[in-house]
């Protein structure tokens, strides 16, 4: 674990230096190239060694480790394709699960497995703030599971009526304007080629934008050096939308996941990705 930490810190230092060098070069060329190009180049440079890989490794260890009150691993966890099947599971989530009779996303499903297999208290973990206690492990597990579908095309199942109902709900919730600013998800994410300040905004109503917006999380965020799951990403979206605090694994976030995931159909998953 110590060498892991050293390697991680060393990686961060090197990356910081390369970003500094890049920023310096970028300043002189800023007028020569478009913002989008510059940002794409910046991302490409950061792609050379994604710190998310460290969380993938950590997640794999957690997946295989005997943990929790029952001291059992998660290897028998069913993520939709059968117990222990990881390959392709992420690109078919959220989906309906017979045992819980709920549409679940990756994180809420991981909590179910942690409770039923390992004896953890799922609701206690759901109420734990991000970046604290078991929530850190859930992010790492999500990074690991998503990495086993990297490069695969999104194909969320829509055969169960609950899956279709959640798509319809997700669509309505995406367009729901409320709060002090009258914002909805669609205020920023329903048009092509728009930005907030210099940040490009994906149009999540279409395949390309949905894949870019939905298909990149879980991701490592360079700006704060954290590994974020989709639940955490949506939490921050809703914060900026001036909505109240969403409950972890709430139907709002899961329905939105179904809407975005189904819109991404055929798009390629790059999770766990690297974000600014």
């Amino acid at each position, binding site marked *: 674990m110590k060498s892991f930490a050293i390697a991680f810190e060393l990686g961060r230092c090197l990356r910081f230096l390369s970003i500094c060098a890049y920023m310096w070069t970028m300043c002189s060329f800023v007028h020569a190239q478009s913002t989008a190009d510059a940002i794409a180049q910046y991302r490409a440079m950061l792609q050379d060694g994604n710190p998310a890989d460290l969380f993938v490794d950590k997640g794999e260890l957690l997946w295989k480790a005997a943990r929790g009150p029952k001291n059992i691993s998660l290897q028998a966890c069913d993520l939709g394709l059968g117990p222990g099947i990881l390959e392709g599971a992420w690109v078919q989530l959220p989906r309906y699960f017979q045992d819980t009779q709920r549409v679940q996303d990756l994180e809420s499903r991981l909590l179910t497995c942690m409770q039923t297999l390992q004896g953890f208290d799922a609701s206690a973990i759901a109420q734990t703030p991000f970046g604290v206690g078991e929530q850190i492990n859930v992010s790492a597990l999500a990074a690991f599971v998503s990495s086993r579908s990297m490069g695969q095309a999104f194909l969320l199942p829509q055969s169960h009526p609950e899956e279709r109902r959640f798509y319809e709900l997700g*669509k309505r919730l995406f367009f729901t304007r409320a709060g002090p*600013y*009258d914002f909805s998800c669609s205020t920023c994410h329903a048009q092509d080629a728009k930005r907030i300040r210099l940040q490009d905004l994906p149009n999540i109503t279409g395949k390309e934008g949905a894949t870019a917006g939905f298909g990149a999380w879980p991701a490592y965020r360079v700006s704060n050096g954290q590994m974020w799951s989709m639940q955490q990403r949506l939490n921050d979206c809703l914060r900026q939308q001036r909505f109240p605090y969403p409950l972890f694994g709430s139907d709002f976030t899961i329905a939105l996941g179904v809407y975005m995931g189904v819109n991404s159909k055929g798009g390629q998953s790059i999770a766990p990705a690297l974000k600014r």
Partner: protein
Amino acid sequence: MTGFKRFIFELNHGFFSITLYPMRHMISKFLCSILGLLLVALLCACAAMKPEFAAQDLDRWTQEVLRRSFRDEKAVKVSILQQDASNKECSTAQSSGIELSEQKRKEIEDENFKTVVSPKDGQYFGDFKLGEVLAQDGRGLTWSDAIGQPNGGQCYNCHQLSAKELSYGTLGPSLYQYGKNRGVTDLKSEVSKPVIEYTWAKLWNSKSFNACSAMPRYGDHGILSQVQIKHLMSLLLDPRSPVNQ
């Protein structure tokens, strides 16, 4: 035998019957499959006309999901999800893809225009420099904001304003040279009055002129104070403001 009967006879018994028989069979098979396809298409069309879930059920479930998916955090309460008529109408219009009728739009706009409060002292302007600071400031009303701090105007998130600021968003139209483009050369001139009153009303309640505008209702929702809105008025309209250079 007349022409047609002769043709059928030849078809069944004549020289061509052997060669044509399999073709006749194929033709009838082809016709059957066309009919079959038409029937399937008709059934599909019927199914498409009746959606799997009724709109009013989906509306009810949506409200239920909204009610049970959030909690209060700091100053941000769950009750803010309560939609007024314009948010409700515009959300439905957008998610269904059915645009609001001209009459409905007008109703919403009139309702919102009624909320516009003119400045108490009749003075519409403040300091364009403070307006620029407000336009840059995107803080306020999230659960991570300090309680009691004044909110920003977050104008640059969506609009271009001063030519010097390159980091601007494109969700709203460019407001660069807003006053200049509208012929405002003297704020005290009678000619400028309609533009001044329109701009104040737009900042106070954006839905007064565009029912489903994406812009927050700064005055009506108490996001900015009258004093703050006056600074933004100066930023937009004052001929000395960086916006009008």
